């Protein structure tokens, strides 16, 4: 297939301003730009990292219909590699983030190639099993420091110039990376490639009969999702200056599913809202210890039984516009 480049990236001359998604995007940017004046910036950066992670996950579940229960592996391994690169190899933050994301992409190619051989629940089980294998590796490998994790990772100077030790500097960088990732995902979803992904989600057999190499599309989507999850994980590591086992554990995979589900499956803005809700919930319930698990489980059950569209999905349904 020879693609027209403009067509391939979904470029078109129609006016994009003044549509509902554009308005929602403007609200989101304004919120995150103004919020650090009122809310503790580290908390916001955590929201941003998880939001990017959830968006990347949603690319796979919401638009290809593949439920991965092992996305923590990509988030976590990128964090470890990024932390190692920044601390031991002394790389600058932007290079450390790139190296971390590349590690996630590599892992995504391997796990994705194996997992897409099965569908539905099996796909979820296989991704979970491989993620668990990555977890065991991280417990035992030398460079991850096992239970301690990699601590005291330097944030360093961006491009060797900007000191990310300053709260404003790192916040701007995290926000910029999040917005770039978000726009990339938006672009992917609304490209012809994204249309094929949705076709596969709706009716895989038909997509095959129309001559699409479905496995290749699935693998590309999987690797994109893994790489963006890795980007989120690497940034998270630099923000907290810590790469730890919790980021690789299967509970993290469960959390990202929850964020996407609460916000709205297959909506562009849903994962961002979901990430915010889940992180806020964890903050306020943190002192209650293991009741957090109960609360998360209850939210899962309620969402699945009664609220399958999620917050943003429900909103979009009311307003008759996909958000």
């Amino acid at each position, binding site marked *: 297939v020879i693609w027209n480049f403009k067509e391939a990236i979904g470029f078109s001359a129609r006016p994009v301003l003044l549509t509902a998604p554009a308005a929602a995007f403007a609200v989101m940017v304004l919120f995150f730009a103004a919020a650090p004046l009122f809310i503790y910036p580290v908390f916001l950066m955590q929201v941003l990292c998880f939001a990017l992670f959830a968006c990347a996950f949603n690319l796979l579940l919401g638009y290809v*219909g593949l*439920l991965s229960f092992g996305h923590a592996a990509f988030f976590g391994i990128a964090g470890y590699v990024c932390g190692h690169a920044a601390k031991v190899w002394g790389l600058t933050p932007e290079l450390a983030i790139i190296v971390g994301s590349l590690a996630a992409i590599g892992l995504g190619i391997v796990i994705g190639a*194996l*997992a897409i*051989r*099965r569908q*539905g*629940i*099996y796909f*979820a*089980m*296989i991704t*979970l*099993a*491989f993620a*668990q*294998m990555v977890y*065991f*590796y991280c417990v*035992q490998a030398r460079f991850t420091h096992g239970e301690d994790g990699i601590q005291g990772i330097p944030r360093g100077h961006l491009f060797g110039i900007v000191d990310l030790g300053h709260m404003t500097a790192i916040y701007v960088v995290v926000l910029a990376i999040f917005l770039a990732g978000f726009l990339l995902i938006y672009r992917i979803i609304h490209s012809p490639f994204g249309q094929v992904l949705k076709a596969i989600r709706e009716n895989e057999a038909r997509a095959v009969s129309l001559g699409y190499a479905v496995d290749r599309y699935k693998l590309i989507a999987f690797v994109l999702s893994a790489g963006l999850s890795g980007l989120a994980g690497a940034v998270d590591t630099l923000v907290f200056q810590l790469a730890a086992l919790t980021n690789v554990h*299967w509970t993290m995979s*469960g959390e990202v*599913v929850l964020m996407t*589900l609460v916000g709205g499956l297959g909506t562009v803005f849903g994962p961002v809202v979901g990430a915010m809700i889940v992180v806020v919930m964890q903050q306020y319930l943190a002192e209650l*210890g*293991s*009741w*957090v*698990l*109960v*609360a*998360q*489980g*209850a*939210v*899962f*059950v309620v*969402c*699945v*039984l009664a609220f*399958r569209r999620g917050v943003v999905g429900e909103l979009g349904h009311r307003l008759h516009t996909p958000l």
Partner: protein
Amino acid sequence: MGAFCAWLLLTKRGIGYFPALIIAPVAIAAFGMLIERTMLRRLYQLDHLYGLLLTFGLALIIQGIFQNAYGSSGQPYQIPPVLVGVTNLGFMYLPVYRGWVVVVSAILCFGTWFAIERTRLGSTLRAATENPGLVQAFGINVPRIVTLTYGFGVGLAALAGVMAAPIYQVSPLMGADLIIVVFAVVVIGGMGSIMGSILTGFALGVIEGLTKVFYPEASNTVIFIIMAIVLLLKPTGMFGKAR
């Protein structure tokens, strides 16, 4: 939950191992059927993934409640006095309790396989999975069969939990750690094949045990490596039928 139920029965009511072996699975199976009737049933017309998410949420709730009530550390469960000790098999020493577990699980596995593959009830069940509408048209109550099957599966899992209680410690996390290995077993063995699951389960247990002896670092990961190889060579699983 099976293991916890047995532990609760022992410590709170003084009910021993052998009655618990019956009571716990029945109680948990009833609980499972209740869940199926009230919640899972609403999701059948949707994607299977919602069922998975719902049960995952329920598992989180249950784990959280147990963790709150009894802490995350393991609770010891004594081996019943009859089964304490070791027998000499000539070439190795086998703890009696582990021998008992092997025998019981072998009987149960064979019984399950026999019930599904060789009895009338089993053939009805297989027909109901294949084509629920047609089976219902023959006047068979398919939803009830599904509920009972679900209960039976849950009961078996609870029974395994009771039997595992004296070997592992009883902790809220024991199920979560095991389920991932169970997934790998199902993927390797192939779904819809009881014999496949049984053979794979035993074979993987042996392989994991052997790896523990010769190369302990890999004992956690060996099952997943085998799973990767099987997926590469035969994506439907060792004993699975193509679909």
